[in-house]
């Protein structure tokens, strides 16, 4: 491993690292084993804590899985799928509003962004629920949308700022108007540049949909709780495990997608290099991208 902290290891260091790795693995495995044994002693792995997943007492296993994956995960995804496009669209609108040249016009946009960025999503959901009298589903979507649109607007602002000045200048020189420049030249590039951050933000949005649990929306976590009340609290751990696996599967695939996008984008000119190039006159967007180690 080449790292800022160590030289590339020689034969002696490599041997030492091999031994260290073996000992380290043993330490980690022993710790995990101790945890597992302690858990087993507490009955974590007993069949009567898990059979809800394959042979539940009062219903069929299909009922349990349907309630978890169709009702629960479905509700989570429905809230996220409605909130994500709304947040993206409103975020673009806010970013455009924030980039107007007139200061007086820009200030309200800055205010809206700073306000919604600084307030917890859960509070916005309560606001929708208690003050605006929305249903719990609408409240969840409302909270997710107002928070994430502010973040999306900030991400796009950073993307616009990272573009080389020459892009806008060339567009004006061709005689394009300001809106034309923004919508056909600058925004498409900013969106592409910030695509990894935007996808990562959608993971956050999906995670935050679990706050529906607190405002009474029947999403995955709430369904898990209902199931463990219905079948008995001794199944709480099994059901929780299913919930964790489902969340990790969905979010990790999205995160890996974001990372893959970032790698793909960086092959064509990485954001940092573009940002740096933007500060120097006379260099284009990926002009020195290949020269910089990423």
């Amino acid at each position: 491993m080449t790292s800022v902290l160590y030289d590339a290891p020689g034969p002696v260091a490599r041997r030492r690292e091999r031994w260290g790795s073996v000992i380290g693995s043993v330490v980690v495995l022993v710790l995990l084993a101790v945890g597992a044994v302690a858990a087993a002693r507490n009955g974590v792995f007993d069949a009567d804590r898990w059979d809800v997943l394959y042979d539940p007492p009062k219903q069929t296993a299909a009922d349990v899985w349907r309630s978890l994956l169709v009702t629960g995960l479905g509700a989570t995804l429905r809230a996220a799928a409605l909130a994500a496009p709304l947040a993206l669209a409103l975020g673009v609108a806010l970013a455009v509003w924030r980039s107007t040249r007139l200061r007086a016009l820009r200030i309200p946009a800055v205010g809206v962004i700073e306000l919604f960025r600084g307030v917890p999503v859960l509070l916005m959901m309560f606001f929708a629920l208690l003050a605006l009298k929305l249903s719990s589903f609408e409240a969840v979507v409302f909270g997710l949308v107002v928070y994430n649109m502010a973040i999306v607007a900030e991400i796009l602002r950073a993307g616009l700022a990272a573009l080389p000045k020459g892009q806008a200048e060339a567009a004006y020189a061709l005689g394009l108007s300001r809106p034309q420049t923004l919508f056909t030249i600058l925004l498409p590039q900013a969106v592409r540049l910030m695509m990894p951050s935007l996808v990562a933000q959608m993971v956050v949005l999906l995670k935050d949909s679990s706050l529906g649990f607190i405002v009474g929306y029947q999403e995955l976590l709430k369904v898990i709780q209902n199931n463990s009340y219905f079948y008995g609290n001794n199944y709480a751990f099994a059901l929780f495990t299913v919930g964790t696996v489902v969340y990790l599967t969905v979010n990790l695939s999205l995160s890996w997608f974001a990372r893959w996008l970032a790698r793909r984008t960086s092959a064509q000119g990485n954001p940092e290099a573009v940002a740096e190039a933007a500060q120097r006159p006379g260099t284009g967007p990926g002009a020195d991208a290949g020269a910089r180690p990423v």
Partner: protein
Amino acid sequence: MDAVFAAFPTYLSGFAVTLQLTAWSAAIAMALGLVVAALRVSPLRPFRFFAAAYVEVLRNMPLTLIFFFAVFVLPQFGVIPPLGFWTAVLCLSTYTSAFVAEAVRSGINSVGVGQAEAARAIGLTFGQTLGEVVLPQAVRTVVPPLINVFIALAKNTSVAAGFAVVELTAAGRRLSQGNPSDTILLLVGVVVFYLLITIPMGVIAGAVERKVAFSR
């Protein structure tokens, strides 16, 4: 409007709980996150692997799920975490430690390899290289994202409202359920208190970023 002024003591006590949650969780998350970050840059593969798994799992898990585990699942095994405040601190600091570790790790990795190579070439020991060359540069890159992590933590303390901790958001909910006619104003009051925490922290992060900005 009177309802808002009458609610002032409730706001203040909620605000105090939110601040305490933030401070305790920040301190514990910082300590835990530094350990995980150290494991993540260690030369030993199993430690790196363990730390990477820890960070990846926690970052992709909703905070609500962690609270759910501590409040509803752990008691099933006879582990009964102290209710309310300290359970919330436990969940918040575990969750945040993954983000701290990630910020610190990317800060260390942002220091140019040539810096450490040059330090070793002039004969500095590992400790000197780390203490005199790498860390001082890493700290500059780490501080602004770290402040952002703690801003997110301050907002995340609101999740504790769903699990029997009466902090700012829970106080706001109680107040507005008690005075249905003034709901909007009462919740706007809560918003103001959150902004009192998050906006100054954001300003500090921005100022630090500008102050330590340097080209490599």
